């Protein structure tokens, strides 16, 4: 028997029908469960769900449908085309665009009813000129910035006034800055609609402002920093591929480019069609593990553009056996966090870095 994900232990190839060889399965259920858990932790605050980088590689439209099915929220995306894509798919939530180019056309946002985040006073003018439905000031939640100081807040206030923008939502990871900025803008007659803090922080609506939490890659069970994701969430995506060829090999033969792996005994080598062209880093050869038939194996030799090799020994692997690169560690597979630690990057970057060649399949 096999599950819908092509159970990595049973070796059932049916999900890889036709020429399909590289699949990222995403569990809608896990995404929804993660979001419910994160909302519970937010104690009724409003929610800004950050689907940057095409929902951190999970597929923008499917992800937006999944998160909006759980409850009302604002959605943030990397750029204008992503916002337009969601609108054209019928997503009617407020959508905030993080990166609005300085050259954006007049009314580019109003045409699709999009909001914009501004991370500099200059960007406030661009947001208003392009017809943003609402302006979100990023004082340091998405953007990385030095300490926001009084002169910068004054520059933001001047830009808002010059653009005749009378209201803003403020975003910052520093709670003190957030409340200080809220008072500052309110004193200058600018309506502050809400204060956005990172998920997992204190979100009590101090001072009468509406509290909003920003939920990012956590909704997919991932982290945007080097630290692991919160324990309340599980990874939603699993990268899998079938064995497409097997070969007997003698002792002491080199494997893959540069022969950086040599067999230690007569063995069987398996070819798996996932490589750096799929976003699995070339440096992971002889380092990262995969799951095959319930056991962990290390990639043998260099990761090539289109394939890796496994030294499967006498495990009795057959063509069509499913290899899981990373997924939910509860099932025995390595996690994206494991890959992230080998690379010194975040788990969100590992998953978002999977290329378009990997087909995403929501189940």
């Amino acid at each position, binding site marked *: 028997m096999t599950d819908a994900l092509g159970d990595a232990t049973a070796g059932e190839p049916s999900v890889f029908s036709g020429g399909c*060889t590289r699949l990222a399965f995403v569990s809608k259920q896990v995404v929804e469960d993660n979001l419910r858990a994160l909302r519970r932790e937010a104690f009724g605050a409003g929610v800004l769900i950050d689907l940057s980088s095409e929902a951190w590689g999970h597929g923008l439209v499917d992800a937006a449908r999944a998160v909006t099915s759980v409850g009302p929220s604002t959605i943030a995306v990397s*750029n204008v085309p992503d916002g337009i894509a969601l609108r054209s798919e019928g997503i009617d939530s407020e959508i905030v665009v993080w990166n609005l180019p300085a050259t954006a056309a007049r009314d580019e946002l109003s045409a699709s009813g999009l909001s914009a985040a501004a991370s500099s006073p200059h960007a406030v003018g661009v947001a208003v000129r392009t017809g943003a439905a609402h302006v979100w000031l990023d004082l340091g939640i998405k953007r990385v910035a030095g300490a926001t100081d009084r002169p910068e807040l004054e520059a933001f206030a001047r830009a808002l006034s010059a653009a005749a923008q009378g209201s803003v939502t403020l975003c910052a990871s520093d709670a003190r800055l957030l409340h200080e900025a809220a008072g500052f803008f309110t004193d200058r007659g600018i309506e502050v609609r809400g204060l956005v803090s990172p998920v997992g922080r204190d979100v009590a609506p101090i001072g009468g402002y509406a509290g909003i939490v920003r939920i990012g890659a956590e909704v997919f069970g991932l982290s945007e920093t080097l630290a692991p994701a919160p324990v309340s969430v599980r990874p939603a995506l699993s990268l899998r591929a079938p064995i497409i060829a097997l070969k007997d090999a003698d002792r002491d033969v080199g494997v893959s480019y540069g022969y950086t792996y040599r067999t230690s005994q007569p063995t069987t080598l398996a070819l798996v069609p996932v490589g750096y062209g799929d976003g699995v880093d070339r440096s992971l050869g002889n380092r990262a593990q995969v799951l095959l038939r319930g056991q962990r194996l290390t990639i043998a030799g260099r990761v090539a553009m289109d394939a890796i090799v496994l030294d499967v020994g006498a495990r009795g692997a057959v063509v069509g056996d499913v290899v899981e690169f990373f997924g939910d560690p509860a099932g025995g597979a390595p996690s994206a966090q494991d890959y992230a630690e080998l690379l010194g990057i*975040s788990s969100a970057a590992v998953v978002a*870095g999977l290329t378009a060649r990997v087909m995403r399949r929501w189940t």
Partner: protein
Amino acid sequence: MTSEAIVDLTAFGKNVRHLRSVVAPAEFMVVLKADAYGHGLVPMARAAVEAGAQRIGVLDVDSALAVREAGVGTDTMVMAWQYGPSQDFSAAVAAQVDLGVSQQHELRAIADAAGSATASVHLKIDTGLNRNGAAPQDWPALVSLARSLRDAGRIRITGVWSHIAEASEDEDTESMRRFERAIEVAGELGVAFEVRHLAASSAGLRRSDIRYDMVRMGGHCWGIPSFDGVTPSQIGIIPVMTLTSEVTSTFTERGERMAVLALGHAQGIPAKAAGRVSVAIAGRRAPVRHVGTDFMLVAVDETVCAGDIATLFGTGAGGEQTVREWGDLTDTLGDEIVTRIARGVPRRYVGSASGE
């Protein structure tokens, strides 16, 4: 756009024509696997034909069909070689896609899929890389099966091929010896080949003895030298992709001014980029200090402000580093850098591959 990858079709056309002339009289195959190394499969397939290429290699059947559907006619060879375990070959055979074959079950499935058209196959021998390709002990059986299918009119045997390991000159020479031995074995079994192909970018450019009837090149077509110690111009090629990004904001921290770019690891910026590579803004180098999940910080002077355009890599004409330099500085190949630039970064095509 905030960020874009500019693809110079004129440079690509020049590279293809130059590389074709270098490997002549051997034929030249432009390799467009992995979405044309991140440059975009369909536009680059059309550009390859405009540049005069008569042979295109892709990886999988779906990509080969996409190339045919983009209007690349059957006078251009389009070849695929990586298949799923239950691959359906009927559309590929009908579209006259040449098929690389390593295993007997693939050969049978191809022969079964042959309808009115006869499949053209290239038998693959493993010459030491231990990835795909038939092992020497399995080779006679693969050749014998191909012969009987050929005699029954169900396939056409067009080529014999392999990949070399590029472990060392001696290893490559050893791979050549194994390749020639496989051709001899096939000859003894009554099978001859029209197209023998072994070399890719590196060996294909450096060694005339390894070119046989055709050389397959990916990296060099994109202006990325695939061996050490040379610049693109020294081997007559021009980098094709230029990656740019708009400065979204600036700030000062510990006395150093930083510009923020909305490109990070999620967009394909290498894990090791921070502290190693630079970008160019207005002709001046700005070292990359930090790369996050979807942003990066570069150190700049007081003249740089939001809205300025940073060039991450390109030809070097604007003071920027090349892809090959980025690869060297981050311990990998330029091929990996360009291939992994995310599809969310728009590609913009400029120039013309035809050379007119």
